């Protein structure tokens, strides 16, 4: 099975962190359903061009968080996600996306007022687009 995790070589975070947060996101958002069998550690490592040590660590961490479970001889599965946890994660993802946007804004010397007005414009435009879309 192919898991849509993408390593961004330019991000400063270590590989395991990137893989872990994306995989956690896929599970909490429900894109990887309960009971999904994940690829073997070796297979996943090869597709990400990272070492099995990294993938093992990611599986281990997510297992400790209760998101994955490993059954001897069969493999590693996605477990049931608590709805509260999913809700919390929804905001986490959005906050993360805004953090990146603000980072870019500051790099390009935008003032807070400029960024706020850009945000409002973007919201208005996208809401309008959604309304216009045929259902």
């Amino acid at each position, binding site marked *: 099975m192919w898991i849509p995790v993408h390593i961004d*070589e330019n991000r400063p975070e270590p590989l395991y962190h990137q893989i872990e947060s994306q995989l956690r996101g896929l599970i909490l958002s429900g894109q990887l359903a309960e009971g999904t069998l994940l690829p*073997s550690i*070796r297979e996943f490592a090869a597709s990400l*061009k990272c*070492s099995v*040590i990294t993938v*093992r660590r990611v*599986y281990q961490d997510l*297992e400790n968080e209760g998101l994955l479970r490993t059954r001897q001889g069969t493999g*590693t599965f996605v477990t049931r996600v608590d709805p509260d946890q999913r809700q919390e994660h929804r905001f986490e993802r959005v906050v993360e996306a805004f953090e990146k946007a603000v980072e870019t804004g500051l790099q390009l010397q935008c003032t807070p007022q400029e960024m706020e007005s850009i945000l409002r414009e973007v919201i208005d435009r996208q809401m309008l687009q959604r309304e216009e879309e045929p259902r």
Partner: protein
Amino acid sequence: MDWIGESKPAAAMSLKGVSVRRQAFTLGPLHLEIPTGLVTAVVGANGSGKSTLFRLLMGMEPCDEGQIEVLGERLGPETDIGVKRRIGYLAELPHAYENSLTAEEKARFASKWYPGWDWDRYRKLLRSFDAESGAKLRKLSKGMRRKVELACVLAHNPELLLLDEPSSGLDPFAWQTMLTELRRYMEQGDRTIVIASHITDEVKRLADYILFLHRGRPLGFYEKDALFDSWRTIVLSAQEDKEAELRLQRVPGIQGWSKSAPGIYQLETDRPDEAEAYCHSQGWKSLSKRRMELEEILGCLIRGEEARR
């Protein structure tokens, strides 16, 4: 089978203070523990000692100092050759004494020697590599002969694979097949590969650990991802004077630096966060920071080693 957990598996091989001295070449001293269940890539330029290391591990080259243990057996002049039957060794160059054999004859010979030999697996491997088995080996192209050798080395499912530049001569399709077969072999969980390679992509796709060699000297043994996570190239602009260049050499984790334009310096570090903080404290502006490629890291390590000579 996958194993999860922090417990470190036993070493498939251990080298303690191992040196080989020949007239024009010295290898070592090597202190190494090659971990079981993982892939270790040996990376170095031609003449760095990769092939000597492999022959040493196969007991084909006596060591002048130190101790080697392979799969729990101590190597020495009186070592039982039994341990060699548990290893799949692919030499850098084909053996001349096999020239007049066909693939089938070579396989028949190997089947008598290796207790784990499996004809079924051998035929499947030949098919997946799309290799010929009727012609004499010397009549085969370099790549075709390599495919036959790879099938033979995998067919007895050894506990340890020693592969000396296995992909030389292979076309891109056979190369992909090789990666898939090696991955499948590793899925068993308790197998170990040591592979010599100078193909960056091969190392990135296969390796868990990397050993760098240069002119017979070890330049470091790293966990692959930790290595790529920590090494960075930073480009910065600084006031250009003698004093700045002196301070540049005190950057934390500095592995090398050069001037790329007036007032623009490029530096390599394996402690990038501290290095950046130091640069800011000096009033220098960091213009970019990026990960390094395998050959860039090797280049840096070699320059460092040459400077110490």
